[in-house]
């Protein structure tokens, strides 16, 4: 038997695995990343986007912590948009169309170049532990034992994957790759509870058979805003590719309705739990029967391919139904399918089994991230991979763990939701899940998290110094405009009238004027001749911080309260059976989740405020709070 020695093993080289492996290797740990196929590293087997509402926030947060996703998409995008621009700054969100092949190959090359990191195309079949449930290594299909201090499972949708459409039901992973069929059993043997989830993807069409003249062309933003705070904005002002909008109609829906009995979804062949936010077209037709039409976006998948992604029409219908229903859509009358739409079922875990560090409660040294944890989406996966990678590394290096709470980042919300709430469908990030979202903006991701990335060691000294300077500029400029008095003289009144605002009756401050709905920091520059020349992002930050100060202060107060409960830690060895007066339901739920703080305990479903009081009194009574 061959034996190898490394510090960290990463299982899977999707968006989670890549971030996890890069983080560990960059922190100097000898790392190996296993993949079923090197050609599928950082593959995007479903939609061709990175970002979108709240997901764009995650990408920015990954960047602030020293992750790779933002930099990679900045160099491989086809089109970019800032969504929700007419709304408040907290919900502005970047969304890019990716050149899938370019993204995948750039990420692969980034891994290849990385010191301390080796790539291995091989299936991992077992985890190996000692008698104290410490992970000691993993075993590959060829029987090689890789000794390691930590392993990070990022198996995505590969575990016991089955792809299904119509009567076709085959054991393949996403996009026709090979499924991984052994690891689940090994995990179950170690007492890990598995779930089975389902998701799906639409067909890909041959671009030369599509009639774009019947669709509405949609272009990207000019100028483009990069994802990464480190990307030079000039470098992303490239020629963009358009996306096309079309619609389904009554004819499409009729075909689907008439063939519902042939859908494996309705016949019960598919058993996994699918996401409600990502319904197949047949699902939409059934659940929203009153809608005569659904939007369909036809999107490019790359510069070097004419394969087009039919966004909005995922399906698991048999081939003949798929062909007929797609052809009812304007512009797709003669379109030829390159890849059939399909549903995919896969094994994942119940993430309540994880510590807040993403280490398994039952197996020390074993971590997991990404879709394996019951989430969905490339960005959610990457964020978790980075988080699990950093935490595995911190533990090996004997350093302070990375912790992000719900008031510090969408990543904090994501992690906390996964380990606290039972998810019965793949978890997708949504802006409404973040209760302090006015503070968690994409513009201030660096201000929120860069310090943490620096402390972990993934942010360079040079970047950190640049950041400190930016922070200082913001602080000083906010102070300045708050003190800057604007007199009610003729020049002021004329300027305000020109800007469509009302006149001043008495003198005011620059900050007060910025707060008027119709004005902002930039438009008021004529009234501010001594204004220093500041970078764009600093100006933006100053504007937001002043304009929405009232709302921000209110949320900060809520955060203070929230933090106090988070700081009350629950001892790891607490025996809930010894806590008197706890209702049975609450006792069961708490035993299951084993929250680390009173705050987390209060978010467990089925635990009410009185239960939390009881718990606090019990802990206090034993001097343990």
């Amino acid at each position, binding site marked *: 038997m061959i034996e190898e020695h490394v510090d960290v093993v990463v299982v899977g080289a999707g968006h989670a695995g890549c971030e996890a492996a890069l983080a560990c290797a960059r922190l100097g740990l000898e790392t190996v990343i296993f993949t079923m196929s090197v050609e599928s590293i950082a593959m995007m087997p479903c*939609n061709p986007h990175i970002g979108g*509402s*709240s997901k764009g926030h995650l990408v920015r947060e990954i960047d602030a912590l020293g992750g790779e996703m933002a930099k990679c998409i900045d160099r491989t995008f086809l089109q970019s948009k800032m*969504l*929700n621009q*007419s*709304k*408040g700054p*907290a*919900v502005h969100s970047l969304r890019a169309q990716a050149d899938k092949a370019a993204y995948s190959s750039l990420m692969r090359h980034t891994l290849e170049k990385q010191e301390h990191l080796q790539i291995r195309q091989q299936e991992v079949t077992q985890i190996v532990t000692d008698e104290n449930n410490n992970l000691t290594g993993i075993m590959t299909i060829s029987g090689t034992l890789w000794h390691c201090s930590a392993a990070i499972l990022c198996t995505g949708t590969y575990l016991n994957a089955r792809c299904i459409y119509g009567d076709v039901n085959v054991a393949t992973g996403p996009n026709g790759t090979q499924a991984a069929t052994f690891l689940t059993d090994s995990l179950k043997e170690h007492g890990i509870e598995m779930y089975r989830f389902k998701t799906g993807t639409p067909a890909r069409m041959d671009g030369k058979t599509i009639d774009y003249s019947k669709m509405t062309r949609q272009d990207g933003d000019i100028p483009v805003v990069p994802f990464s705070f480190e990307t030079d904005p000039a470098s992303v002002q490239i020629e963009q590719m358009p996306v096309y909008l079309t619609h389904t109609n009554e004819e499409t829906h009729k075909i689907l309705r008439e063939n519902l009995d042939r859908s494996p979804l309705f016949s019960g062949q598919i058993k996994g739990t699918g996401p*409600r*936010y*990502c*319904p197949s077209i047949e699902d*939409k037709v059934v*659940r*929203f029967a009153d*809608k005569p039409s*659904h*939007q369909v*976006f036809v999107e490019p998948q790359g510069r070097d391919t004419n394969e087009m992604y039919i*966004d*909005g029409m*995922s399906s698991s219908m048999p081939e003949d139904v798929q062909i007929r229903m797609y052809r009812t859509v304007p512009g797709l009358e003669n379109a030829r399918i390159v890849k059939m739409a399909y549903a995919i079922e896969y094994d994942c875990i119940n993430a309540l089994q994880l510590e807040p560090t993403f280490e398994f409660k039952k197996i020390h040294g074993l971590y997991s991230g990404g879709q394996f944890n019951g989430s969905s989406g490339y960005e959610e996966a990457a964020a978790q991979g980075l988080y699990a990678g950093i935490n595995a590394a911190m533990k090996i290096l004997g350093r302070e763990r990375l912790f992000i709470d719900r008031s510090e980042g969408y990543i904090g919300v994501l992690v906390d939701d996964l380990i606290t709430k039972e998810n019965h469908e793949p978890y997708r990030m*949504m*802006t*409404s899940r973040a*209760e302090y*979202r*006015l503070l968690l903006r994409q513009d201030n991701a660096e201000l929120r998290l860069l310090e943490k990335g620096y402390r972990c060691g993934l942010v360079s000294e040079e970047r950190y110094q640049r950041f400190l300077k930016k922070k200082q500029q913001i602080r000083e400029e906010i102070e300045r405009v708050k003190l800057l008095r604007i007199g009610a003289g003729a020049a002021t009144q004329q300027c305000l009238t020109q800007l469509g605002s009302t006149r001043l009756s008495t003198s005011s401050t620059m900050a007060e004027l910025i707060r008027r*709905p119709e004005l902002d920091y930039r438009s008021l520059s004529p009234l501010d001749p001594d204004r220093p020349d500041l970078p764009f992002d600093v100006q933006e930050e100053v504007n937001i911080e002043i304009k*929405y100060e009232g*709302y921000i202060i209110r949320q900060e107060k809520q955060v203070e*309260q929230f933090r*106090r409960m988070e700081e009350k830690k629950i001892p790891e060895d607490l025996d809930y059976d010894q806590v*008197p*007066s706890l*209702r049975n339901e609450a006792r069961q739920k708490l035993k299951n989740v084993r929250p680390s703080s009173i705050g987390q305990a209060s978010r467990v*479903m089925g635990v*009410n*405020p*009185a239960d939390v*009081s*009881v718990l*606090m*009194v*019990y802990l*206090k*009574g034993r*001097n343990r709070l």
Partner: protein
Amino acid sequence: MSYVSEDTIAAVATAMSPAGIGIVRISGPDAVRAADLVYRSPKGKTKLSEVPSHTIHYGTINDQDGQVIDEVLVSVMRAPRSYTAEDTVEINCHGGVLAVRRVLDTVIACSDRIPVRLAEPGEFTKRAFLNGRVDLSRAEAVMDLIEAKNDYALKNSVSQVRGSLYEKITTLRSQILYQIAHIEASLDDPEHLDYSSHIEELGESVGEWIRQIRHLIDTAEDGRLASEGIRTVIVGKPNAGKSSLLNLMLGEERAIVTDIAGTTRDVLTETINLQGITLLITDTAGIRQTDDRVEKIGVERAKESASGADLLLWIVDSSAPLDENDSQICSLLEGRPAIILLNKSDLDTVVEESNIRSLFENKEEGRSIPVLSFSAKQKTGFDELVGMLKDMFFRGKLSWNDEVVITNMRHCSLLQRSEESLKRVKESIDSRMSEDFFSIDLMDAYEALGGIIGEEIGDDLADEIFSRFCMGK
């Protein structure tokens, strides 16, 4: 380690029963400042924040318009030498139960200036414990207390919210949730859904919601929201004059009154206020052995109501001889406050006070229950009845469960919270903020209303988004 409370709480610290004095306790970092907002010394010069700890001060409690609510004695106890080990102010009210409540209302009403919230069940004790004022051996007792009180409050908060109120709140909540879901779905999937064209409509809805909630608050203050008062049950044989007595008290014809025995088949409940004492009065079907099925149900219910009563009014037809049924009723009276009315004193009477008293097995009890000669028809003896009620109440012989009051006040403060949140939504709309700002306040209103009917948020929003709005991909 000392447990530092974040906020200041207030509640009635004595049972809502006996006559005269009731104590409103305020505890927490802002307790003294909050008390200063409502307290006025005789010369208007004394500030509680300036007085030494553990001193008592005479004065009045005034509402925001300067109206005097009650004459009081106020004691100031600074941390850590108080029951909760926090700064504590106790207001000793003299004006009876209603005054105690109004004083508490006034303190809470000032929370826009200094935040004071209504204490949760058992919260003073919990704080006392967390601050080490209650010893370890009592820890479990405290937990039991919190759990029991919470259970009670929860059960009550649902059961006391009457059918129509429950419906109103449920309707409001579902309307609010739909709007939040619409906003959030459109923020998450802006290419499929747009909300901005609905903002004006939302502004109108919010205005309407605020009006409805205000109406609920106003009615709540009349004591109609939750049944709060002395649960009084009128018992007696068929046609003894129970409904006539009720009508007399109500001052209007409500129950069906005929000469046919057994006409009141259902249980009627009315809230009446007799010179400051609130009675929740229930008229029951006449109690007698019966084979009539409909009437039988009524009789069962009457017995049930009687067993949960704070006060029984037994009305006896003094023109008809006592029989087996009267002995049955007699047994209902044992061990609870009661008044016996010898009705129909205008007719030829065959029943005397002594006949009644001799019915009681426990002779002492039989002697202690007051008996009044009465005529519902000629309205004689009514003033004596009211006088007797007042006397019993202020001597502390009558009381009711104070948890009801707490529940009621909880409802009120939750309604107020939802009203405030909705007002903020309105302000945001008026100042042309985008919908992502006000959906946060909408959520707060939704949560507060949920507290009234005992519902947590859980996955409501996600469920609503996915079931109502077709999200893209």
